[in-house]
C-alpha cells in the first residue's frame, strides 16, 4: 500500500465480497436501523413492484467503505460519496475498487481524490462515487 505517496491512476482500493444473501439483508436490517421491509419482506417487495427483495444501498456503500478503510485509516477520510447507479440483487458478488484521480492541497494538507466503484459479478456498476483522503 502506498497511500503515503500515491500517484495518479494507482489502484489503492480493491476488495471482493461474498454473495449477498437474504440472511445478510436481515442482519443488516437490524444492525443498521433501516427497517424498510422492501429489503427483507418478499410480499412487501412484490407489492411494491419488484420481483424480489434487494440490497440496502447502504449495505453496498458499507462494503465500499470497508474496502476503503482497508487501504486508508478512517481518520484520514475527509469525504466519501456515492451515487446508487443500480439496484443490487440477491446473490450479487461485489468488487469494490478505488483509483487515484487527483492530487491536491486543501485545508493545509495534502489530499488525494479517489474514484470509487462497486460492480457485481457481471461487471454492472452498482455504486459510483469518490472519496477525498489526507495523505
Amino acid at each position: 500500500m502506498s497511500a503515503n505517496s500515491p500517484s495518479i491512476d494507482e489502484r489503492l482500493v480493491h476488495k471482493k465480497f461474498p454473495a449477498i444473501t437474504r440472511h445478510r439483508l436481515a442482519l443488516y436490517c437490524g444492525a443498521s436501523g433501516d427497517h424498510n421491509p422492501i429489503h427483507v419482506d418478499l410480499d412487501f417487495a412484490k407489492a411494491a413492484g419488484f420481483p424480489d427483495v434487494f440490497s440496502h444501498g447502504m449495505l453496498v456503500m458499507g462494503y465500499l467503505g470497508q474496502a476503503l478503510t482497508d487501504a486508508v485509516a478512517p481518520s484520514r477520510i475527509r469525504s466519501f460519496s456515492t451515487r446508487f447507479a443500480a439496484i443490487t440483487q440477491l446473490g450479487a458478488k461485489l468488487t469494490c475498487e478505488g483509483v487515484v484521480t487527483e492530487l491536491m492541497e486543501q485545508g493545509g494538507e495534502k489530499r488525494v481524490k479517489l474514484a470509487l466503484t462497486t460492480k457485481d459479478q457481471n461487471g454492472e456498476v452498482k455504486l459510483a462515487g469518490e472519496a477525498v483522503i489526507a495523505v
Partner: protein
Amino acid sequence: MADQSAVGRMFTPVTARVEPGRLRFFLDTLGERNPVYRNEAAPVPPTYLFCLEMMDAPDAFEFLNALDIDLARVLHGEQRFDYHAPVVVGDTLTFRSRVESVTDKKGGAMTLIVVETAVTNQNGAHVADTSRTIVVRNARPS
C-alpha cells in the same frame, strides 16, 4: 407527493450514542475484520453515521411520513459524508436534518429529495455533514 413547499423543512433532532455492542453487530454483519474498529474508543466506519441516525430516531422514516411519501416508492439515489472531526465509540451525537431541495425528474415520474444533516458531538463540535438523495417513484397520473 412532495413539492417545493417542503424545502427548508426541518425535522426532530435525533440524539444517538455510539454504543460498542451495536457497533459490533454492524461490523460482524459486514464481515469487517479490520482491527482498527475493535479497540476502545475506536473510530466508527465511514457509513455508520447514517445508521446511528436511523437507529435512534423515534420515527426512522419521519420525513417520509411528514411529506406523505410511501416507503414502498422510495429508493436511495445518492449519499455523501463530509467528515470534520473524529467520531469514536462512546460519543453522543446529535443529527439535525433539513430538506435542501425537491426536484421533479422525467416529467414528474420521479422526484428527487435532498436531505442534509449536520452532526455534532457531546462537546458541541461539528463532526460531520451528511447528504442523502431520495428518489420517489411517483404513481402515474390517471
